[in-house]
């Protein structure tokens, strides 16, 4: 069963995130995720994340398809107007890239081409609307699209961003517009994960809880600088005391992953290294965990 089928059939989903290379060496990216083949349901391909130039996410998604992986193409509003966005979505459909995750994107000046012109012609809610309009056989301008296309549309949610009331209204707009799965920013607290899970389900989409193993105190502080409320004190304290902070960070999110397996619908590993460990963990979940029937 592929990602889209699992989504429809209520199976537990595991996704992971990879970035296209900062160059042309896509083969090493494919090689890096080889241990996860057949274990991770789909791979998000980031779109110049943090506004840093990388190879096209659409091209990388096609390489994944060719090598037997199921890609989720991330597409941001930052770099493309509605003409380019529709063009890329048509291209994705033609290449057989069916899963898309649509988002606003980090602001231009935060990355490594800070002088670039930001676009933001449409926002993430409208980009989801565009994908659904294309599926209906039309372009945004009403002209007919030749050939059928079908997407599994997803979006993102940051439970630590505010204002809470507007973030929730926007989340609902995304789901009402057609997002069928929601991947979250990294969560380090089971209670938050459960609240987000319930909220997304209540709005009618499949929640996929984001988990990013923290490798060091430095990384924890960086995460805290991005999202102060997202990193709990107990995680910082644990990292301070740990003999092997990277192992501690990994064990910490594995514990959360176990908890999510009990109540949730999916986990999104924003993985930095640890590919083999993740493969082993997924094997354990599928074969030996008390919840293995959910996969």
């Amino acid at each position, binding site marked *: 069963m592929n990602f889209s089928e699992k989504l429809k059939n209520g199976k537990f989903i595991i996704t992971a995130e990879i970035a296209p290379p900062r160059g042309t060496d896509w083969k090493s990216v494919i090689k890096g995720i080889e241990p996860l083949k057949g274990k991770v349901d789909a791979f998000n391909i980031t779109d110049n994340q943090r506004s840093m130039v990388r190879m096209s996410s659409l091209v990388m998604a096609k390489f994944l398809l060719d090598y037997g992986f199921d890609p989720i193409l991330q597409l941001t*509003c*930052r770099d493309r107007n*509605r003409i380019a966005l529709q063009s890329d979505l048509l291209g994705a459909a033609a290449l057989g890239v069916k899963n898309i995750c649509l988002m*606003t994107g*980090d*602001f231009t*000046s*935060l990355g490594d081409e800070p002088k670039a012109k*930001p676009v*933001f*012609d*449409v*926002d*993430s*809610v*409208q980009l989801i*609307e565009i994908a659904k309009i294309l599926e209906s056989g039309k372009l*945004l301008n009403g002209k007919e699209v030749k050939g059928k296309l079908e997407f599994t549309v997803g979006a*993102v*949610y*940051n439970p630590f*961003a*505010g*204002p809470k*009331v*507007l*973030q929730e*209204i*926007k989340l*609902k*707009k995304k789901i*009402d*517009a057609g997002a069928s799965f929601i991947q979250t*920013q990294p969560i380090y607290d089971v209670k938050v994960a459960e609240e987000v899970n319930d909220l997304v389900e209540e709005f009618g989409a499949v929640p996929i809880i984001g988990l990013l193993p923290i490798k060091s105190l430095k990384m924890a502080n960086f995460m805290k*600088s*991005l*999202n*102060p409320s997202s990193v709990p004190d107990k995680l910082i304290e644990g990292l301070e005391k740990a003999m092997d902070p990277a192992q501690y960070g990994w064990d910490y999110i594995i514990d959360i992953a176990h908890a999510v397996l009990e109540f949730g619908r999916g986990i999104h590993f924003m993985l930095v290294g640890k590919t083999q460990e993740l493969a082993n963990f997924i094997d354990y979940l599928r074969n030996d965990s008390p919840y293995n029937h959910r996969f």
Partner: protein
Amino acid sequence: MVVVKIKPLSEILKNLRGFKKIAIFGCELGSARCKNGGLKEALQLKNSLEKEGFEVISVKSPGGTCILEKVSKPLLEIEKGCEVVISLACGAGTQVIAENTNLPVITGVSTLFIGAEKEGKYFDEYCIACGDCIISDTGGICPVARCPKSLVNGPCGGAINGKCEVDSSIPCIWYKIAERLEGLQKLEVLRERAPFKDYRLAVYPRKLEVEETT
């Protein structure tokens, strides 16, 4: 108002090469308000230029340099005996001056934005003149101008502690919008998906024709 910033003297001097006799135009409507190009700054510039050996023959600061009838007479007065005009008015005012004099015109300011004043000291951009105003739906606060991503359906996920991800010295404007709409008990207006913006309305040069009424 249109907010301007006076250029460094060194840059003004660079543009004055070859000239000796100067007229300075400020603007009391916009430039004066943001203390970067009204009569006071025009007189300060006069002093600086005289110290550099220039001859400033006229300093004027009409109330509204972009209005031809306000500048036509002062322009006539400087036609003789003057070699160059320095304008401290915004881009619009400076062009009106340039269109109506045979003298060369250089600008002494950079035009920044359409803004609002706080405490006579701070000027914030409030409007990008997108031509398609939505502030009736956002509590009278414009996210198109005041959110760097011009988001119309709500905030992005990037604000940190209520501060904009692009510049931590400014608030995420959606916090202000939320606060305002909650106070007015009008949050409902944001539950509707915002229409796609029509950016034709922002394609410059734009024009407005006022219809004659009988």
